[in-house]
C-alpha cells in the first residue's frame, strides 16, 4: 500500500469515526499542522457528502403492482416445498379412504344383520341362504365399490398435485375395501346388528374381520412405496377376478331348461364383472400413469400451484448427438406456442427463444439437471454449469480460462444455495443428484445469450480449433445477438433458429464422439459411469435424461405461434 493510499485510508476512517482515540488525536494534530492534509480531508469529506446527498429515489408504484402480480402466482412460501402439503394431503387422503371403508363396511354388514356370530358362514344352510342373498349382497357390494371408487376419484383429483402417490395408495385401499374377500369373513368377528357410522371401530380382532382387515390393509398400504403399490394393485385385481370366478362357479349349476332369475342374475353379474374389470383396468392405468408422471410432475406441481402453464422440454440429448433442434408446441388448453432451439453435446447446452414476443412472456426458466454422477462430482458439475454466473469470473470464462478448479465450482454451488437459487438438492442412492435452478425472468429473457455448460464429470478438453467451447459460445452468442438485432418481434425469426444452429455447427470442430466410455470421455467420467452400474444401454438411457428444462409461462400469455424448424425450412 502506498503512502497516499495509507493516508486516504486513515482519513476515511477518521471521517467515519472509526479511528481509535490515540490515532485520531494524532491525526488531528497533524491536520492542524499540515494544510495539504486538511485539504485532502476536506475533499474526501465532500466526496462522501456528495454520495450521501444523492436524492433518495422512491420505488415507483409499478414495482408493487408487478410484485403483487408475480406473488399472486407464487405458492405461499410455507407451502412451497410441498412437503407439509404432501404429508397433510396424504393423511387427509387416508382419512377419507378410511371413512369410505367404514361406509362400505357399514352398508355391507347392514345387509346381513341377521348373520350369525359364530362364523358359520360356510355351513350348508348358511351357504344356501347366502345364495339366496347373493343378488342383494352383490348389489350392496356394488354400491360399496362405487362409493369407494368415488372417494378414490375425488382423492385422485385432489392429491395429484400435492403428492402424486397418494392416488395410487387410495386406489389400492379402495380396492381393499371393495373386494369381496375383505368382507367375506367379517361375520366371524363383528357383533351382529347394524352399526351406525358414529359407532367406534370394533376392537382389534383376528385378521379375518372385515373392518380390521381393511384397517390392516390401510396401514400396510400407507407404508407401501409407489412401486410396491403397482404390484399390489395387480395382485388385488387378480384376486378380484378369482373372487368373481368363484361366485360364478357357485351359481353355475342350474337345472337345465329351467330359466330362472338366478341365471339372469349370473348374466347380469357377468356383465357387471366386465364393467368392473374395465373400471379396474382404468384405475390401474391411472395409477401407473400417476407413477410415471410423478417425477415429471414435481416441477409441474409448482407450476400449477403458481398458476402457470408448463412447457416441459425434456431434452433429447444423448451422448452421440452433437446438435439437437427441438420444436415444442403448446400445452393443451392454451393457444401458446413456442419453439426452442437446443444445441447440445454432452458438455454444452444452449437454448434460445426465437423472438422478443416469446421472451416477453417468459416468466421463468426452471432448469432441472439430473446428474448421473457420484454426489461430490455432481456438486462440482452444477458449480461448473453455473460458473459463468459469477461476475468476477466472466472475463476468465470468455477468454477460455473457465476450466474452473473444482474448489471454485463447489464455492459457486454454495453461493447459489445461499442465494436461494438452487431450489432443491436431493441425493438418492449416492449416485444421482438432482438440482433445480430457477433462473430469474430477466435472465430468462436473455436466453438467447444464456448457455449452460455441462461438465459431466470433469472439465472436458477444449475441442475447438484453438479455443475452448466456452469462448466459442461466448463469441457465437454475441455475434448471433448482434446479427439478429436484439431479437425484435418477428424480426430475424427466419434466421434465428437454423441460422443460429448453423453458425454454431460451423464453428464446432468435428470433435470425437464422447459417448459413454468413448475415447474422448475423461477417465473420471468413465469411472463415474462404471459406478452407476447397469448395462451400456441403461447408462445411455440415463444420459438421455440428463437435462430437463421446464419453461413456465403465465396462463394468460398470448404467444405468437412459431413454426417448427421443419415447417420453416419447408416454407423456405
Amino acid at each position, binding site marked *: 500500500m502506498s503512502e497516499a493510499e495509507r493516508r486516504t485510508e486513515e482519513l476515511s476512517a477518521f471521517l467515519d469515526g472509526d479511528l481509535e482515540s490515540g490515532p485520531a488525536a494524532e491525526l488531528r494534530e497533524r491536520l492542524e499542522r499540515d494544510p495539504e492534509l486538511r485539504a485532502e480531508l476536506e475533499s474526501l469529506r465532500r*466526496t462522501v457528502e456528495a*454520495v450521501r446527498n444523492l436524492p433518495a429515489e422512491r420505488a415507483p408504484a409499478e414495482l408493487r403492482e408487478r410484485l403483487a402480480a*408475480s406473488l399472486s402466482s407464487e405458492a405461499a412460501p410455507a407451502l*412451497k416445498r410441498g412437503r407439509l402439503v404432501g404429508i397433510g394431503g396424504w393423511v387427509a387422503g387416508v382419512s377419507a379412504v378410511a371413512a369410505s371403508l367404514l361406509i362400505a363396511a357399514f352398508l355391507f354388514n347392514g345387509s346381513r344383520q341377521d348373520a350369525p356370530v359364530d362364523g358359520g358362514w360356510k355351513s350348508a344352510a348358511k351357504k344356501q341362504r347366502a345364495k339366496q342373498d347373493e343378488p342383494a349382497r352383490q348389489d350392496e357390494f356394488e354400491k360399496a365399490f362405487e362409493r369407494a371408487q368415488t372417494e378414490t376419484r375425488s382423492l385422485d383429483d385432489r392429491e395429484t398435485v400435492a403428492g402424486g402417490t397418494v392416488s395410487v395408495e387410495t386406489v389400492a385401499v379402495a380396492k381393499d375395501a371393495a373386494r369381496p374377500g375383505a368382507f367375506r369373513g367379517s361375520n366371524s368377528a363383528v357383533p351382529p346388528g347394524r352399526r351406525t357410522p358414529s359407532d367406534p371401530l370394533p376392537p382389534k380382532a383376528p385378521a379375518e374381520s372385515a373392518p380390521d382387515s381393511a384397517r390392516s390393509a390401510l396401514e400396510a398400504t400407507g407404508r407401501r412405496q409407489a412401486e410396491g403399490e403397482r404390484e399390489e394393485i395387480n395382485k388385488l385385481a387378480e384376486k378380484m377376478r378369482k373372487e368373481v370366478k368363484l361366485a360364478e362357479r357357485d351359481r353355475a349349476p342350474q337345472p337345465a331348461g329351467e330359466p330362472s332369475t338366478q341365471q339372469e342374475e349370473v348374466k347380469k353379474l357377468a356383465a357387471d364383472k366386465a364393467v368392473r374389470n374395465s373400471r379396474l383396468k382404468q384405475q390401474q392405468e391411472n395409477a401407473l400413469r400417476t407413477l410415471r408422471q410423478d417425477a415429471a410432475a414435481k416441477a409441474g406441481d409448482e407450476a400449477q400451484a403458481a398458476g402457470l402453464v408448463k412447457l416441459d422440454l425434456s431434452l433429447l440429448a444423448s451422448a452421440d448427438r452433437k446438435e439437437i433442434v427441438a420444436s415444442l408446441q403448446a400445452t393443451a388448453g392454451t393457444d401458446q406456442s413456442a419453439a426452442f432451439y437446443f444445441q447440445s453435446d454432452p458438455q454444452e447446452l444452449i437454448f434460445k427463444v426465437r423472438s422478443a414476443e416469446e421472451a416477453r412472456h417468459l416468466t421463468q426458466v426452471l432448469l432441472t439437471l439430473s446428474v448421473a454422477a457420484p454426489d461430490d462430482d455432481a456438486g462440482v458439475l452444477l458449480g461448473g454449469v453455473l460458473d459463468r454466473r459469477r*461476475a468476477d469470473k466472466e472475463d476468465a470464462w470468455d477468454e477460455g480460462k473457465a476450466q474452473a478448479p473444482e474448489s471454485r465450482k463447489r464455492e459457486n454451488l454454495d453461493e447459489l444455495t445461499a442465494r436461494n437459487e438452487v431450489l432443491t438438492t436431493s441425493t438418492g442412492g449416492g449416485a444421482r443428484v438432482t438440482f433445480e435452478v430457477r433462473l430469474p425472468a430477466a435472465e430468462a429473457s436473455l436466453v438467447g445469450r444464456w448457455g449452460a455448460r455441462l461438465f459431466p464429470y470433469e472439465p472436458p478438453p477444449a475441442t475447438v480449433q484453438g479455443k475452448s467451447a466456452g469462448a466459442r459460445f461466448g463469441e457465437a452468442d454475441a455475434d448471433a445477438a448482434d446479427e439478429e438485432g436484439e431479437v425484435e418481434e418477428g424480426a430475424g425469426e427466419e434466421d434465428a433458429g437454423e441460422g443460429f444452429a448453423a453458425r454454431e455447427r460451423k464453428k464446432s470442430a468435428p470433435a470425437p464422439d464422447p459417448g459413454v466410455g468413448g475415447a474422448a470421455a475423461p477417465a473420471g467420467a468413465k469411472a463415474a459411469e462404471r459406478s452407476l452400474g447397469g448395462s451400456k444401454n441403461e447408462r445411455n438411457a440415463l444420459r438421455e435424461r440428463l437435462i430437463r428444462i421446464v419453461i413456465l409461462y403465465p396462463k394468460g400469455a398470448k404467444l405468437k405461434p412459431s413454426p417448427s424448424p421443419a415447417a420453416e425450412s419447408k416454407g423456405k
Partner: protein
Amino acid sequence: MPATAPVGGGRDDRELVAAAKGGERSAFDELVVRHQDKVFNMSYRILGDREEALDCSQEIFLSAYRGLQRFDDKARFGTWLYRITVNRCRDQIRRRGFRKYTRPISLDAAGPDQESEGGLEPAARESTPLERASTDERTRLVNAALQELPGDAREILLLRDLQGLSYEEVAEILEVPIGTVRSRLSRARGLLRERLLPILEGEA
C-alpha cells in the same frame, strides 16, 4: 434497512418474517412496503438505469419471497435483502457485459436528452430553477462518476455512504472482513474523489 422499526401493525421485521413464513401474504407485503424504497434506490444507484432497477427490484423481492423459508431468523432481514440486492445487481451488470451492452456515462457526454431516455434522471427538487439546475447537474455528475467506478467500489460506497450502514453490516452483506471493508471503502472514496475533483474544486 437493517433497522427494523415497527410500522404498520406494530410488528418488526422479525415478526413479519415469521408471519410471512407461516403463509401470511400481508406480512410479506408489509416487508415490501417497508424496504422497497431502499432496495430500489440501491439498485438504481448501482445500475444507473431506472427500468433495470425496477426489474431488478422485482426480482429481489421475488427471490426473497421464494427463499424466505431458508432465511435464518437470527439474521437481519434488511441485511439479507441488501445481500440479495447486491447479488442481483451484479448479475444484471454481468449480463450487460455479456451481451456487449454497455452504458458508458461520461462526465462530459451526458446531456439532458440522454438522461430522459431511461438513464440517470435529474432529481426533482423544490427550489429555485437556478438551484434546481445546479443540484440536478451535481446529482447527474455524481451519478455518472459513480457509474464509472468498478462495481465493488460502487457497491461499498453506496452501502456505506448512501445507505449509511455500519462497517459491520457492510461486511456482512459483502461477506468480507471488516478490514477489507475499511480498505476497499477508502480506495473507493479515493477513486470517486478523483472523478469529482473538478466539481469539488469548483465548489471550493
